[in-house]
């Protein structure tokens, strides 16, 4: 008896939409290869109807998620980090294949991603102190500015950092109460689709994160033009596409995060300290005037 006797059990990668794992509405798939061109798996090739369903899911989840206490959101995100920790080996293997790096380097990136998730989780009940204020005004009023989540955020995930880059764009959006529709890296979607399985088992309400795999050029335009999407993060959009999407996004005055020069860089760009910028740019400031009483 040799080891060949055991049949290989191949994984069917599926989308993560509204807390469920559907196939693409279009029934299409495409071949995903590692950095050297060897076949890894078939991933769903999403269509604009998957975009539509994902936005519906995200919108439905927005009320409860943004209404949950900051403390509760933080706890849930810690829980996600705990689940990620338990599947480090799987993610390290997927990142090694996706990013084309050594096992050691891949493990370092996964660790960095988990640490980043924890770091953002900590921000949930602190961001209001940084972004909010008690404003001095010329009258007997309390004048308080508080940050509120923008709403449904469409994210084109970075193309060349399949896991660390992905975590670095999802976590800052959801920690403040936004819900997201993520278009995973077209070339390397598998870590993103596996992340969906982690999110589904870690108390995160269904629909807070929706993950689609497919072509950014196909899924970007309907997302950018969608009237029910409030912001779009173009981290993974190549130059020309980013311009086109920004133009489409202007129709309903979406907030747009333009791609930064390093966003699509290969290598360890995403290892750098992220800062609070990405988190703060997906917040709206609400200011209330309240009479002081006596």
């Amino acid at each position, binding site marked *: 008896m040799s080891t060949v006797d055991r049949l290989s059990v191949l994984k069917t990668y599926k989308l993560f939409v509204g807390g469920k794992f559907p196939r693409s509405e279009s029934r299409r798939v495409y071949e995903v290869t590692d950095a050297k061109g060897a076949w890894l798996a078939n991933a769903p090739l999403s269509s604009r109807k998957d*975009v*539509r369903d994902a*936005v519906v899911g995200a*919108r439905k989840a927005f009320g409860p998620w943004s209404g949950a206490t900051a403390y509760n959101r933080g706890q849930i995100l810690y829980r996600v980090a705990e689940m990620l920790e338990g599947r480090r080996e799987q993610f390290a293997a997927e990142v090694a294949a996706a990013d084309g790096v050594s096992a050691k380097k891949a493990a370092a990136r996964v660790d960095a991603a988990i640490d980043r998730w924890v770091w953002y989780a900590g921000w949930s009940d602190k961001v209001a102190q940084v972004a909010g204020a008690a404003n001095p005004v010329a009258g007997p009023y309390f004048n308080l500015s508080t940050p509120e989540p923008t709403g449904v955020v469409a994210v084109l995930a970075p193309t060349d950092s399949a896991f660390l880059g992905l975590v670095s764009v999802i976590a800052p959006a959801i920690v403040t109460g936004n819900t997201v529709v993520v278009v995973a890296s077209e070339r390397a979607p598998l870590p993103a689709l596996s992340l969906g399985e982690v999110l589904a088992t870690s108390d995160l309400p269904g629909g807070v994160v929706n993950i689609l795999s497919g072509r950014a050029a196909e899924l970007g335009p309907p997302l950018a*033009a*969608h*009237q*029910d999407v409030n912001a779009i993060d173009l981290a993974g959009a190549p130059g020309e596409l980013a311009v086109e999407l920004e133009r489409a996004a202007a129709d309903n005055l979406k907030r747009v995060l333009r791609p930064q020069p390093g966003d699509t860089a290969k290598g360890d760009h995403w290892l750098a300290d992220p800062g609070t910028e990405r988190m703060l740019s997906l917040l709206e400031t609400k200011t209330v005037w309240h009479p002081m009483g006596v």
Partner: protein
Amino acid sequence: MRTLRYRIEKVRRFTGVTGCYARRYARLVTMPTTVPAYGDEAARRLASLADVTASDGALRRFLHGLPGVDAVGLDARAATLGTRSIKTSAKAYAIDLAISMVDLTTLEGADTPGKVRALGAKGMRPGDGAPPVAAICVYPDMVATARQAVAGSGVKVASVATAFPAGRAALPVKLADTRDAVAAGADEIDMVIDRGAFLSGRYMEVFEEIRAVKQACARPVGSEAGNAAHLKVIFETGELQTYDNVRRASWLAMLAGADFIKTSTGKVAVNATPPVTLLMLEAVRDFHATTGVQVGVKPAGGIRTTKDAVKYLVLVNETLGERWLSADWFRFGASSLLNDLLMQRQKLSTGRYSGPDYVTVD
């Protein structure tokens, strides 16, 4: 000749009586010119069927003589028709048609005159050039408000009555409820049948009740508000347990003079489903083939998306044909459906997916 014999056979099967009756109806069924259920001619034709409704026993024999429903076949047929792909210009047509068939409904304990007026305004002008809805559906005490809100627009006012939704009240109370709504200016009355009587087999009681309510819908000749209010009979199919019962209830209501038959109140767990609606459409088709009387159908409750609505339109077209594809003969009882139809309409005209921020909250 073959079709004639087929028709006679069908009548014989439906009535469960022997040849002499079949021959008596043969004259009727070979000339089924179509007449609307609310006209005088329809009443005359129903009167000629009086022997099936002559006594409790005859009515029971008739209803239990109706062929049993093939549940698996019915489900499969409804599912198959639900897979039709309706796109582009056909979809645009279907959406506008569906909007014009909506009975925009608010039946909450918390209804206020303001809410009813807002609903009326929305029904008359849903926005972006969409056609007005068919009717506003309210509780009887809101009829006057609704009447005022949609005055002169062609949008009808429908009112539920007869102790909606349970229907558990004495007949005089139900009739008073109905007369009240009619006097306040309702164009249409949605009554609920007494499911308790129906399920315990007291068909005659249900029959007489529908007849009595229909009489209560009448207005004095030359009345300012027009002719008699049209009567929609609600079966609450979710409580009737079996498809056979739905078929029996359909025939019972049509024999009693219903202008419309309606699936549900929207107040119980199971509301309109495609198979139940298909079954009722088939009953209407058979009734029309037998008597020539045209009766309308209204599925209500649980229809929330454009996709669902278009599926129902396909059912209507495939079962009854184009003649029923108008707001006079097919309605949707819905409240949130209209918003989805409007969003789909925006998507078709702009190419961009719309969202709930772009339609009214009601």
